[in-house]
């Protein structure tokens, strides 16, 4: 091997130096991205805390960091919205990667609030009995130890706790913040993975029923990876179609208003088969995340297996983020294609509403029941998405906001009802709960009524908004199916209420643990938001209305 060859491989020949054209530094609007940056920063700090802070004080430090970061990020969102980034100053930031507009800010705000409540439920340490004098939370003492092994026992004895869940949560939230505001397909995909991977992990670290938890995590991971692969394939096809990852450019190509064509791509560009397949596959990836039929199969297993605080957070925030991304994709990138995607989405919405509602009827586990309920709700929200009107956007935004609080609250209540084996999630154990703990049962009844969409709860206002938008958008038949599914769904919600209030309590029934103010706050916030949005929804509907315009 000659010296010159080596030279040419490893160094730049001085003579061959062409003048390197100056690379422009990307222009990043840090202030406008601050919510996401704060959360990512806090997550990194959380990792450092794990490394450097003594074990005893990690829990408090982590909770503190997480809450402060989320609150700061929320204030940043509010500040951005207040200074008009949601309406008049909405624009595309970060060299076209991130949109800062009404829907993005609204959903980010919702995710951050859900995140704060999520941290509260994660941090709850009074429900499980103390292990060797240490207060413990819902997470395994040491996630890496094999369930039932000596090392696990040692970890429990030593009072270990998995405080890593807080940075993991923050990473997930940061991905979720980017997801609905992503303005090119690559950012979308990265955000998808950033929020999915921590969630896979979080599913695996339940303190009780670890095997089930791990099984759930594996399933979630496998199926999530499978879905991601489809999404990625779709992204590739769309790139092939448009020659760009950017939403705006793709939209231009779809509309036929593109100005300059890259000659290298001229062969494939504008090929509608690529567009249609790409669209279908990317949409499929998002439908997987929202849990729409037939991509919903992971939902019940994962919801049941994951630690309940994780389930609550995941059910709320993932749905918000994924629907935000779906809305942006369909409204910004593919509005010109709506005659192609609407019929397909119609079908998906119908089978999702009916499937979720029907299968929920025969569930016997409260967490699985809520999982199927979340599938049905995904169908309802899809009905609003299909409206393809400003009303459709704002109704979906409102629904997501209302739904996330109900969901977190409901799962938080589930963590309270316990027996010797941990949470008593089998429905038969909930019989007569209303006699034993009227307050908890009443609160849960409020959440169930909200799920069922009974007037004076946020569920009614939200459902009414999406169905009205769908009906005005010409999807009357969809609304009929939606109402029928709501009727079916009402059956199993009310059945739980009847079970709680009108059945005799079992002698060996579960007890209701008294939580710390953390969980209480989460539940109270859920109740308050549910009732306020139900009784006086107009202010929030207006807010969603103002926020309902995408920047392009």
């Amino acid at each position, binding site marked *: 091997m000659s010296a010159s060859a080596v030279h040419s491989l490893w160094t730049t020949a001085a003579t061959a130096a062409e003048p390197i054209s100056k690379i422009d530094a990307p222009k990043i609007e840090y202030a406008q991205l601050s919510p996401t940056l704060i959360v990512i920063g806090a997550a990194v700090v959380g990792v450092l805390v794990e490394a450097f802070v003594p074990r005893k004080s990690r829990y408090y430090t982590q909770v503190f960091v997480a809450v402060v970061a989320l609150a700061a990020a929320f204030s940043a969102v509010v500040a951005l919205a207040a200074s008009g980034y949601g309406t008049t100053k909405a624009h595309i930031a970060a060299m076209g990667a991130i949109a800062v507009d009404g829907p993005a800010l609204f959903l980010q705000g919702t995710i951050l609030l859900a995140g704060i409540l999520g941290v509260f439920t994660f941090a709850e340490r009074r429900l499980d009995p103390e292990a060797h004098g240490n207060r413990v939370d819902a997470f395994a003492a040491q996630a890496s130890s094999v369930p039932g092994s000596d090392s696990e026992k040692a970890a429990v004895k030593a009072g270990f706790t998995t405080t890593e869940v807080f940075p993991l949560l923050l990473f997930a939230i940061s991905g979720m913040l980017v997801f609905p505001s992503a303005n090119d397909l690559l950012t979308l995909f990265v955000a998808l993975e950033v929020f999915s991977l921590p969630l896979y992990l979080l599913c695996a670290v339940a303190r009780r029923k670890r095997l089930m938890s791990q099984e759930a995590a594996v399933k979630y991971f496998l199926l999530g990876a499978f879905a991601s692969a489809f999404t990625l394939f779709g992204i590739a096809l769309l790139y092939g179609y448009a020659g760009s990852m950017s939403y705006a450019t793709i939209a231009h190509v779809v509309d036929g208003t593109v100005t300059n064509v890259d000659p290298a791509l001229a062969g494939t560009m504008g090929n509608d088969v690529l567009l249609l397949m790409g669209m279908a596959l990317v949409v499929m990836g998002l439908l997987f995340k929202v849990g729409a039929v*037939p991509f919903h199969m992971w939902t019940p297993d994962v919801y049941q297996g994951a630690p309940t605080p994780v389930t609550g957070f995941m059910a709320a925030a993932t749905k918000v983020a994924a629907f935000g991304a779906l809305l942006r994709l369909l409204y910004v990138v593919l509005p010109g294609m709506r005659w*192609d995607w609407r019929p397909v989405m119609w079908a998906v919405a119908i089978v999702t509403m009916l499937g979720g509602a029907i299968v929920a009827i025969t569930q016997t586990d409260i967490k699985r029941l809520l999982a199927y309920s979340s599938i049905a709700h995904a169908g309802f929200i899809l009905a609003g998405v299909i409206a393809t009107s400003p009303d459709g956007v704002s109704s979906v935004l409102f629904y997501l906001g209302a739904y996330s609080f109900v969901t977190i609250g409901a799962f938080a209540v589930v963590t309270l009802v316990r027996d010797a084996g941990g949470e008593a999630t089998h429905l038969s154990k909930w019989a007569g709960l209303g006699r034993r703990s009227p307050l908890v049962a009443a609160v849960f009844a409020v959440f169930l009524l909200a799920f069922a969409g009974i007037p004076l709860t946020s569920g009614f206002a939200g459902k009414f908004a999406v169905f009205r938008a769908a009906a005005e958008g010409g999807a009357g038949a969809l609304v009929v199916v939606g109402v029928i599914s709501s009727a079916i769904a009402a059956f199993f919600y009310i059945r739980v209420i009847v079970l709680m209030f009108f059945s005799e309590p079992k002698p060996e029934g579960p007890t209701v643990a008294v939580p710390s103010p953390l969980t209480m706050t989460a539940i109270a916030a859920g109740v308050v938001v549910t009732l306020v949005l139900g009784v006086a929804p107009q202010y929030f509907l207006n807010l969603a209305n103002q926020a309902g315009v995408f920047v392009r």
Partner: protein
Amino acid sequence: MENLIALLIAAPLLGAAVLLCGGRRLDAVGQWIGTVLAAASFVIAAVLFADMLGKSPEDRTFTQHLFSWIAVGDFRADVGFQLDQLSMTFVLLITGVGSLIHVYSIGYMEHDERRRRFFGYLNLFLAAMLLLVLADNYLLLYVGWEGVGLASYLLIGFWQHKPSAATAAKKAFLVNRVGDMGLSIAIMLMFTTFGTFAFGPLLGTEGHSGIAGDAGEGKLTAIALMLLLAACGKSAQVPLQSWLGDAMEGPTPVSALIHAATMVTAGVYLIVRSAAVFNAAPDAQLVVTVVGGVTLLFGAIVGCAKDDIKKALAGSTMSQIGYMVLAAGLGPIGYVFAIMHLVTHGFFKAGLFLGAGSVMHGMNDEVDMRKFGGLRKYMPVTFVTFGLGYLAIIGFPGLSGFFSKDKIIEAAFAKGGTEGWILGGVALLGAAITAYYMTRVMIMTFFGEKRWQPDAEGHEPHPHESPSSMTIPMIVLAFGSVFAGAFFSIGDRFVHWLEPVTGHSEGDSPVSALTVTAATMVLLVVGAGIAYLQYGRSSVPVTAPRGSLLTRAARRDLYQDDFNHVVLVRGGEHLTRSLVYVDHTLVDGVVNGTAASVGGLSGRLRKLQNGYARSYAVSMFGGAAILVAATLLMRAV
């Protein structure tokens, strides 16, 4: 001046609010507050009346718009008042008779502990009744309509410790609900047909006619019949008449004011006010006359058999309102006379009831006429005023009833054709029966030997004249009974007064007025004579004889309650039972069947969820394939 209209209602409303919310500390002065405010309302009415008289007949409609009550899209309901000659007539009657009865009640209710509440209810009634006749649209009228219903309910059941009173109040309320339903349906029909229910555009104001006549006759007939149903409920016309007799459980001033002079005539007001609708619906008008004619005889026959003085008078009220409804059904030839009879009836029937109250007051609240007798010596003032009322109601020449009832009989003949003959004949027959039952009441109460006995506790009644607070109103009303008819009729004063609002046309009677008057006189003498022979010449047994079939039927109100029980109560029970059966078998069958099949489907779908990640992945793959295929297919189609 027009701003005073609201004050008319505000005064008694204030009274009701103060008295009902004021608590015990007002117990001592409650009756004075109530009476003064009622009188204040009358004074305002008089001022407005004077002002109205000063204007030419064309400008006598006063309106006052207060505020927009409900405005949703095209639907608009205002709170506004319309005071024209028709409302003015009612306002004067209501506030005038109302004030007198307030005064009377001071004496009558003197020993009642809940007197303050009683006056509060009376004031509430006045306010609601004034709202009813002053409203400038049907929706607001409906508010007043329900308001008087409420006041009536509260006052019938005022002595709620008596189960019979509580039951009677409930009965009145329920029967009235049927009529109220008619009014609400009529209002809804008007709104869907015309897009409004305001009097102005609907019924027309002076100078231009309203749009009420523009709709198809079928719709107008439906509206008119619903209005008639409402009128039947409030005015105790067949078939909704059954509550009025029981309503006599209320204190007698209430019977006089609400169940004789004012509220029960609200149905007549409604029909006359809606003249534009009825004029365009001749079929409905025919039904109105039939209802009026039937009730006229019905009430009169019931009145003949009752031994309870108030119930006899209640039958009479029903019958006299039957006259008014009959006249109102005749159209423009009858409207004015319906209202005229309404006013004169307000005087003499209120007077009669107050007289009856006075008798009861002196007789330890005894109402059975068989235990009265010979009271003229003990209660001279009552006897004279009651007697004048009696002469007025039977149509003694020169007294009020003579003028007003005669006009109705003439108008009935003037309807023309066979209908005219039948209606006229019914009205004449009614006049004869009226003379009979009123003479019977008169003789049994004031003439013959005294028949009263000690009551169960051995108290011998000591009949005595009532205090002046009670007799003065009776005297004033007696004046009205005597002179009102002549005053209205001489020179056709009343016709000219009301004509701009209701319209008036002289009918073409096949029988001359003189003939009608003569026939009436003959029948009057015959009716009164039979009564005299039965009750004046021979003694009246203290316990009622068994009586003829008709008497027994009439005592039971011609089996109206039995009819209601068999047809409505039993029928309702059967209907409910069969509906429950259908619900259990058919509806529940379908529901349970659906639920079972959904449940079955759920169970089967559930099996798809088998826990294997591989089959989930297959499902996702299949889904993705279908999604892609469907998207491509959509484009291909």
